[in-house]
């Protein structure tokens, strides 16, 4: 290895370190932010279900509201009971996928009709920014931060 190879190697490690540091500083939702479970699936496009985040510690997905009415396959009640272990199915392009929610551990895909099973091997996600992707099924489960949505009582004006 030449000296320039070593410099290159150090550069890659340094870039990765910056990435990790960036995630450590900006990845955790602040107290007024929410953790949003973002679900993309072919059957109903993209849907969001928001969850309050308790001081950066994942306690459980608890849905306060859902922006998509057409969450076929996921009953809102399933998501609302955040304290309990839950399983639910969504329809992927190749067939059904089984999602598993375990309190304190996160969300994982435990079963999917895809050749490489990358989504299943990804395991639990529980932090903002993490995601599970199943490209053959066109399914993506992502946890993202979002600004809190105001309650209906806070609406300043309604234009008609």
């Amino acid at each position, binding site marked *: 290895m*030449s000296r320039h*190879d070593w410099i290159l190697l150090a550069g890659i*490690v340094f870039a990765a370190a910056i*990435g990790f540091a960036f995630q450590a500083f900006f990845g955790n939702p602040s107290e007024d932010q929410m953790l949003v479970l973002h679900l993309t699936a072919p059957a109903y496009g993209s849907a969001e279900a928001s969850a309050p985040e308790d001081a950066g510690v994942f306690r459980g997905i608890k849905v306060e509201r859902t922006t998509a009415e057409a969450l076929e396959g996921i009953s809102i009640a399933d998501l609302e009971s955040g304290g309990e272990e839950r399983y639910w199915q969504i329809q992927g392009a190749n067939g059904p996928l089984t999602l598993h929610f375990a309190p304190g551990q996160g969300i994982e895909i435990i079963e999917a009709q895809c050749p490489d099973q990358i989504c299943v091997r*990804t395991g639990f996600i529980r932090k903002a920014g993490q995601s599970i992707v199943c490209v053959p099924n066109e399914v993506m489960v992502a946890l993202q931060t979002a600004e809190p949505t105001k309650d209906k009582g806070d609406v300043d004006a309604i234009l008609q």
Partner: protein
Amino acid sequence: MPSFNKQTRISPRKMVLLALMITLSMGLHAAESMMPLLFPMPGIKLGLANIVTVICLFIFYPRDVFIIVTLRVILVGFVAGSFLTPGFWISGSGAILSFLAMAAACRFPKYSAVGISLVGAVAHNIGQLAMVSVLMGNQAVFYYLPWLLVWAVPMGLLTGFSAKAAIKALRKTGLDGTMGMY
């Protein structure tokens, strides 16, 4: 001035070598896909086929290496039955971006085969992530980029040192650039 009427001829010797390299990279790709998963994270592969790309960059002109890489991706798609599936596009974009980055790195003679291989490993991962985010219409996967950068280092070193040893052996046979670039 080059004439457009003149047929660009490819010597039989070069054609055989190109075919050999494509076969070799397909074999390495197949061997890798048969390996049990060594790593906890999805998307991390050894990238054994990259060894051939690195060797070829030292022997052939970049446009010939481009043909080798493109044909390897397409042929592996045929053999594995993944042609035009999402997996095909993901591995293809990784392979092409990795080739482009390595061909660019080759213009800096201060990098050895190991350095070029590191560049290739990083570019391969970025290309794959970019294609996943295009296919899913969501950039969330780039969250995993730091992890993939970290893993690119041991993978790049492995393929780099393998390529270096192979190039050294090729020098003894006279099949490498000492006979003039093919």
